[in-house]
C-alpha cells in the first residue's frame, strides 16, 4: 500500500490525491486523461496528468512530448470551465512543435476540477 509520506511518483493514486490536495489549498486544478491511443504511444489509455494554476504538474500523458501543450490548454480550461478533447499526432498541424516523436497518435481529455 502507498504510504502517506511516499514521494509523488505520479502513480494513478498520487496524481488524483495531488489534485484533491491542490484544490483544497485553493488552487485551480485541471485533470488530463489519455482516452485513446493509436500506434506506439508512450503512455497507455488512462494515464493522467494533473496541473494547477501555477503550471505545476504531476503524472504524464506522453513521454514528455506533449506535456507542455497540454499544460497550456489546461490553464485555459481551468478558467473557462469547458472540458476539451485534444488530439496529438504526426498528422497534427502543430506536429512540428508538439508531435509525438514515436509516430503514435493520442487523444487527451482535459477537464477542470470544480465544486
Amino acid at each position: 500500500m502507498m504510504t502517506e509520506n511516499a514521494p509523488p511518483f505520479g502513480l494513478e493514486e498520487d496524481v488524483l490525491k495531488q489534485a484533491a490536495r491542490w484544490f483544497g489549498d485553493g488552487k485551480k486544478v485541471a485533470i488530463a486523461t489519455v482516452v485513446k491511443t493509436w500506434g506506439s504511444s508512450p503512455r497507455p489509455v488512462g494515464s493522467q496528468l494533473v496541473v494547477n494554476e501555477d503550471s505545476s504538474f504531476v503524472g504524464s500523458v506522453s513521454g514528455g512530448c506533449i506535456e507542455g501543450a497540454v499544460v497550456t490548454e489546461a490553464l485555459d480550461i481551468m478558467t473557462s470551465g469547458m472540458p476539451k478533447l485534444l488530439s496529438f499526432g504526426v498528422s497534427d498541424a502543430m506536429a512540428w512543435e508538439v508531435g509525438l516523436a514515436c509516430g503514435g497518435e493520442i487523444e487527451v481529455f482535459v477537464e477542470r476540477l470544480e465544486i
Partner: protein
Amino acid sequence: MKLSTLDNLLSEKERKLPCVLVTRLGDGHQVLWSEYANLSKTEFPEILADACRDALLKDKGCQFELADERYFLQVHNPPKRLLIVGAVHISQFLAPMAVMSGYGVTLIDPRGAWATQERFPGIPLDKRWPDEALADLAPDARTAIVTLTHDPKLDDPALEFALRSECFYLGALGSRKTHGKRVERLAAIGFGEADTRRIAAPVGLDIGAISPAEIAVSILAEMTLSLHGPRRKTI
C-alpha cells in the same frame, strides 16, 4: 470533474473497491460506477454497466459508444499486491521498488529481528508464520508472491499455500540445486510437475544481478513479464 466525484473515487480506492469513472466526452458529464453504486437503470443503462465490468476484468480503460455519445471508461482496480516472505537484504530494495511500481506490498517474516520498521520504513509488516499470514491475506490473480528467506522452514509453508492460490507470479530465492531439493520436498507432499513449474526459480530474470538491489530489479522485471508477457517480436 466535480470535487464530490473525486472524493467518492478516492474513498472507493481507499477501501480497495474496484470502480469505473465514466465520462461523456461530449460535455464531461461523469458517473462513478461500481457494483455497489446503486444507479438507476435510466441514469446508467445496463449495457454501459456491462462495458464497465468488462473493462475492470481487462484492467484497461476504453471508449464506449452509446446513442451517438462517446463515453470514456477509466478503470480503477485496487492495486496489484506483492507479498514478500523474508525481511532480508534483497527485500529492503524489492519492497520500496515495488511500491514505486504501484504494488501494495506486505512483508511477511515471523523473525522479529528481521522485520522491523527501521529496516522497512513505511512497509506493512506481518509477523505471523508465512502460511497463516498468506491464508489471511488471500492472494488472488492480481497478487505476486516471492519467498526470499532461503530457509525451508519459512519458505516451504509459503510455497505450499501459494501453489494453491491463483497468484500471477511465484518466485523463490535459491540456486538450481536448492530449488531441486525444494521441488523434491513439494513432490513428496503431492505437488505435481505442473505445480512446481509455476515457481520462478532461481528467482528473477537472468540479467547477471549480483547486489541485493540488482536482484530486486531482476525480480520486479520477471514479475512484470509474468503480468504482461513480452511485446517486441523476436526476429
